[in-house]
């Protein structure tokens, strides 16, 4: 499993990254933790003549928990997310989800930027970020722009990011209410058969807002506004749960693979979403 040879660069700043991307165009690619990219290069499913390692680039790290939002630098690892107590207080769903990604060694290398930029439908953080209505900061030759997670994913490995843009940060409005990240997988370290990210607020016995996104059930994450809407104004009783699950099942489009046939995945998605809503509601 030897990847094709490449030129390796380790620039110290974004300007250096952008210059390399400009000079080498499609032949250049950035690498964060490398735990999606290196396996693809080893299988020769990705060829990268010019590999730009982001590990020394200034300004891409750091977790900031502010008054109204959270900023995660693109190079923040899953291990850092798990270990940050302020973050776990402000947005506990991030730790809950990160703990269900891969294993300790992989989480030491895998970054939030790599996870959301990759575009693999199996990645857990794109759906999570859609649930939280996060915004991605992209820096390119013409400056900086912001793209909502809910607008970012076009198809498998196709995102709103241009090839010569770098994702520098993820900004998340402080989530409110109860949360749950529920994931069905065959074993530790496996991608989801189905996963659900849920964030719910309540007033008295009634649900006031609900945000729901699903993972690995289509070629992109599925943010399902209708499923959330089915809960609002209800006491999240059986009828409301049934309606939310039905709305979600109308929005997903799973395909058969070694995790099971389509009907099985639709069933698992329903079970997982039901559990996630119940847990989030119990914490709201």
């Amino acid at each position: 499993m030897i990847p094709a040879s490449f030129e390796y660069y380790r620039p110290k700043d974004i300007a250096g990254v952008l210059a390399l991307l400009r000079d080498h165009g499609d032949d250049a690619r950035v690498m964060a933790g490398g735990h999606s990219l290196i396996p693809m290069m080893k299988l020769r499913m990705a060829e990268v003549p010019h590999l730009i390692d982001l590990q020394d680039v200034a300004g891409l790290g750091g977790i900031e928990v502010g008054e109204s939002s959270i900023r995660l630098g693109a190079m923040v690892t899953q291990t850092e997310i798990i270990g940050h107590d302020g973050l776990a207080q402000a947005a506990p769903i991030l730790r809950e989800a990160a703990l269900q990604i891969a294993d300790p060694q992989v989480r030491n290398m895998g970054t939030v930027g790599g996870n959301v930029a990759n575009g693999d439908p199996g990645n857990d953080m794109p759906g999570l970020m859609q649930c939280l209505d996060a915004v991605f900061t992209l820096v390119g030759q013409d400056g900086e722009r912001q793209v909502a997670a809910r607008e970012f994913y076009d198809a498998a490995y196709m995102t709103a990011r241009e090839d010569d843009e770098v994702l520098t940060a993820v900004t998340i409005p402080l989530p409110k209410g109860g949360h749950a990240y529920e994931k069905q997988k065959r074993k530790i370290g496996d991608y989801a058969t189905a996963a659900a990210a849920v964030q719910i607020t309540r007033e008295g016995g009634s649900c006031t807002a609900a945000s729901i996104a699903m993972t690995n059930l289509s070629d992109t994450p599925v943010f399902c506004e209708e499923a959330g809407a089915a809960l609002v104004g209800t006491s999240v009783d059986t009828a409301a749960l049934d309606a939310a699950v039905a709305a979600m099942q109308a929005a997903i489009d799973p395909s058969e693979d070694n995790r099971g046939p389509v009907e099985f995945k639709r069933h698992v998605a329903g079970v997982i979403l039901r559990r996630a809503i119940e847990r989030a509601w119990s914490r709201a």
Partner: protein
Amino acid sequence: MGKKMHIQMQVNGKAEEFLAEPRELLIYTLRERLNITGPHIGCETSHCGACTVTLNGKSVKACTVFVAQADGAEITTIEGLGTPDALHPLQTAFKEHHGLQCGYCTPGMITRATKLLEENPNPTEEEIRFGMAGNICRCTGYQNIVKSIKAAAAEMNAAKEAAE
């Protein structure tokens, strides 16, 4: 063949310097270039953990790191933990509690367990299983690996208390 680059790293406290293609995987650097054969290759696909080493203080799978990424790094392998005459407490515990059978996974297991016990010196069984989830063993059924790590933790904590 691609262009070679100049690489420097500290492996088990010893400075190493050589020319290598950036695409060389760290596990091959260790095993074939530096003759450090403790870390094993089980799957070569990031799944089994037999290749686990400590890179700049973090457990990583050396089959999923390019040597270029490790330029300037500090690396510890099983060879850096103990010697035949002075075993690391984890090595002693694995021996005494039958934490290995064929031994293929053991260097990765023990190298990972050193970091687990640094991060959490007194782990519960559940925490051990979760913290060791990136390391697969085909022989033991894990029971004795968990026992060994628990025993080593107790031993290391007692030694620390005695020293204080």
